[in-house]
């Protein structure tokens, strides 16, 4: 059976285990909540994680498109970028997939698959950096945008150029 077919056949099992491995990066009390609650509004982290893993998995069955891959990773990475993770912990869950797939599939998935997972990890890292940059930008410009802009429109302070906001 070709690798994609066996991946597809084991889709649910792989994603379930991958999800479990991913939420293990949280403290155990938290992981229990993330794994248990099904309503996506009561459990945004659990559901975004699930959604991202499913979409990334489906990308893996095709030729990888870096843009689409990053989009698929966005929900989970955007969250992890504001949580208590180092960069490597934030994207580390991607690598778990190698081990999980190896254990589930009867035939070893091969180097090609490993390389694909590496590409996913790189895309995750890219997206993580973008999210961090956007956090820093927001942090640097927020109060100036909200308060200074109002004063500036009123002519009470001198006008700011966009570069002054940084």
């Amino acid at each position, binding site marked *: 059976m070709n690798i994609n077919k066996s991946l597809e056949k084991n889709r649910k099992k792989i994603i379930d285990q991958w999800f479990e491995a991913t939420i293990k990066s*949280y*403290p*155990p*009390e*938290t992981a*229990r*909540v*993330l794994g*248990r*609650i099904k*309503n*996506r*509004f*009561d*459990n*945004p*982290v659990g559901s*975004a994680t699930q959604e991202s893993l499913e979409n990334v998995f489906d990308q893996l069955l095709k030729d990888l498109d870096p843009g689409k891959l990053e989009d698929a990773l966005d929900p989970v990475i*955007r*969250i992890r970028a*504001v*949580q*208590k993770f180092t960069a490597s912990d934030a994207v580390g869950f991607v690598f778990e997939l190698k081990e999980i797939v190896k254990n589930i599939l009867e035939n070893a998935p091969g180097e090609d698959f490993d390389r694909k997972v590496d590409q996913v990890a790189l895309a995750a890292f890219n997206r993580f950096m973008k999210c961090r940059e*956007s*956090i820093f930008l*927001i*942090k640097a410009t*927020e*109060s100036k*945008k*909200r*308060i200074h*802009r*109002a*004063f500036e*429109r*009123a*002519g*009470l302070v001198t006008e700011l150029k966009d570069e002054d906001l940084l």
Partner: protein
Amino acid sequence: MSDELKPDELLDKVDHSPASGSWMDTTVQIRPGIFSYAAKPESLETLSAPNPRQWNPLDDDWKLPENWQEIIHNGIKERLEKFRTFKIFMDVCVRCGACADKCHFFLGTGDPLNMPVLRAELLRSVYRNDFTTAGKILSKIPGGEKLGGGRPMTVEVLKQWWYYFFQCTECRRCSVFCPYGIDTAEITIMGRELLNLLGLNIDWIATPVSNCYQTGNHLGIQPHAFKDMLDFFTEDIEEITGVNVEPQFNVKGADILFITPSGDVFADPGTYTCQGYMILFKYLKDKYDLNVTWSTYASEGGNFGFFTSHETMKRLNAKMYAEAKRLGVKWILGGECGHMWRVINQYMDTMNGPADFLEEPVNPITGTKFENAKSTKMVHITEFTADLIKHGKLELDKSRNSNRVMTFHDSCNPARGMGLLDEPRYCIQNVCDNFFEMPENTIREQTFCCGSGAGLNAGENIELRMAGALPRANAVKYVHDKFGVNTLGTICAIDRAALSTLCEYWVPEVEVYGVHELVGNALILPGEKKRETDLRMEPLPGMEDDDE
């Protein structure tokens, strides 16, 4: 959900597994991005608050007074006697865990100490140790403290308090799910009040409080600048509508005193909401000869004292009444603010009331009695406007908002603190055709906080704010994806700022509007010219090509 959460399991797991880092093991890691900067000594001095000094939460030494443990012990004792709720909340929690997964900070940060039950345990454990018989006995046996869930007050415990009581926005969502009605927000309020006895406030609260105490508003803007801003809005509105809506200030004998958070006057996008109020008041003046005055003295509706201590809240709140009395108005109309309404609805009357020099509020145009404001004498503007709309007193052109696909965020305080749920929706639906609710477990009484309330809307704690905002953002994103929602309406000044940032990170396609900005766009002023832009000076729907 919560019924599956076997809390004893949960808490046992947390309590008795030191290997995985039990919460009782009190070493707290204070992390940049999560905490807010310490209060500046000058700001504490203004209010003669205890222990003003330079200190840094990341330092080992927090420069506490020598007898700080005694101060805390006595502080708890005094408050147990004074506030019955505090005593009850300390005693009755059965650790059922129903609240555990209801806090946006827990859901967003994944930090178990942000579970409301554990947040409360931070203080409750000390209470048990110091004030209950079982706790006192157990504390004498080695290891006994943990058995009874008690622990002595140490510097590490104090640091944990500080870190986690400033990771609670006092939003009360948890209390909605507690079978005993325990309001963890009130426990946070007590916790912060105790911390303030040692000079442990954050600057984003202490400095606005100090400003408000000295100049009448959180930003410390002087009366002339306050007037300058409204004059400037007047010019903008004249450019858009052709009508001069010049407001009046400090007018004795006016019918109504209007007070709004200063964020509406000084911070975008609240400024557009402010212009909406001005248009409304001009309309009511021309059509019905209603006389509304602004005050440059009571130039702040918000009350960051509420996030400091009961005493500070009272001092800041008093100026509203003092000004209403000085001006001799009939009653007070309040703008779109969040925590201001909790202060008014729950505390004002007992704190600074009764305001028997004011009249029981009646809408002079419709004759409606605002029964719920009978004793506070202060009416919420969306209630006032909804009443005018209901009686057909406003001429509105909805089409001017037809490019807005709306949803509405219930701000925690008006929703859970005073039950104001339908009036803002009624206003929105009468000035705009496209309205979609977010899912029911994220709105009305169950609304998710913006993650920046209770004085946490600082810059340095942006990661905490964005994580705490996730559950709200998640629902906004859902209606954006599903219905094409592009506008998040709200009736709170903190929200107008905080939700804008939240959207910037989580759902950049969505903009934040105050309800009265939409009212201002739709309201047809007597004698106005054909409007081409909205209050943001963006082309009105259908006018996009007129420049070309």
